[in-house]
């Protein structure tokens, strides 16, 4: 498995929670958002999104709800829950601390 896949796999929960914190979305919409906003970096086998969403739903971090679009089609929208938001805050703090620590080392090395 490539390094990029490993990184995506380890951060998929945080990415999904961050996106759903902005607005409720359905699966395909999430794929498009991830792809568009990361300029293609977060491109992965799309089917693997659903196990991640279902895992988060089982853990009570998101809540799925079928809704009807104006076109009459039904889509399952995912909403972040309070527990999900608290997890996102924790994950964001850990991520920023990690990033800060990595930057202190990498940037110091680049500056030498």
């Amino acid at each position: 498995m490539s390094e990029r896949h490993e990184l995506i796999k380890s951060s998929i929960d945080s990415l999904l929670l961050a996106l759903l914190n902005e607005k409720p979305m359905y699966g395909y919409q999430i794929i498009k958002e991830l792809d568009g906003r990361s300029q293609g970096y977060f491109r992965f086998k799309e089917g693997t999104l659903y196990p991640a969403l279902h895992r988060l739903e089982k853990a009570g971090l998101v809540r799925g709800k079928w809704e009807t679009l104006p076109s009459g089609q039904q889509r399952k929208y995912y909403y972040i829950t309070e527990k999900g938001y608290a997890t996102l805050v924790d994950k964001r703090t850990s991520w920023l601390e990690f990033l800060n620590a990595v930057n202190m080392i990498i940037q110091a090395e680049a500056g030498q």
Partner: protein
Amino acid sequence: MSTIVQEYLDNVRSNLRLEPSDEQEVLSELATHIEDEIQDLKKTGLREEEAASVCIRLLGSAKTVARQIYEAHSQGTWRQALLACLPHLLFGLVFLLNWWRGIVPVLVMLVMVLSTTVYGWWHRRSSWLFPWLGYSLLPVVAAGLSLLYLPRGFAWLAVLIYLPLALWLLYRVVSQTIKKDWVYISLMLLPMPVIISWFLTTEWREGFTVATIERFYYFGPWIGGSFLALAFGVVSFVRIRKRWLKVAVLFMAGVIAVSLIAFYARGRLEFVQLLLLFLFLASIFLIPALLETGARSGRWGKIFEHRPMV
């Protein structure tokens, strides 16, 4: 819906092994994803079939998707784990505390097992039901074993009445269970090799005498221990996410229980009997898996019909 998409969804469905309502929801969600993506791909100039083909490629292997979704759903709660292991725990306690000698505790157990099984059978048939279902088949096994003590010349009773009835009942239960998942048949039949092993250690050829009861009394803690091993295996089965690990832990619980019996029976089990018991244990895993494979491929026709795609 194009053939390639239908095949993909069929493939996901046959590997999902979830509750029917969850299964339908997963398939609907994937179908809407495919629908949206095909529409977008068609806007880029692709034809319907080409767009479907690209979309399926982007989704990835149906088996992998199904396996990962199964793992997201497969972990039962601690409450379900407790409920599933409860019949093993109760049977373990019956022997550890020597309750088996009193008619009241045995009757209470029987009523509890049968009523829980009936309730579970008519309400969703969740995974916790199957150990209870296994114990509710005990009266059938006990009736079969008691036929061994019939006077000579009464074998026709077994052949004409007992065997057809017992086989019909087993067929009904298995054919309903296999539609869900073959591993539940193994979960259901897991106590059988253990019960038969303990029966064989009682020197059953002499008939039920005071000595038999004494042997049960002597073996009580070990009989209890073997059921506790099953209980531990069932708790792990419910809590583990990965399917292969679920099967492995259940099989190991059976191996540990039968090995405990072989160790503490101190030579009362002959080598051939022990070998047959382990083969029986293996068969309660292999036969259901083969039956399910046959049912899915349509080899068994309508005998074990698999649920069609809705």
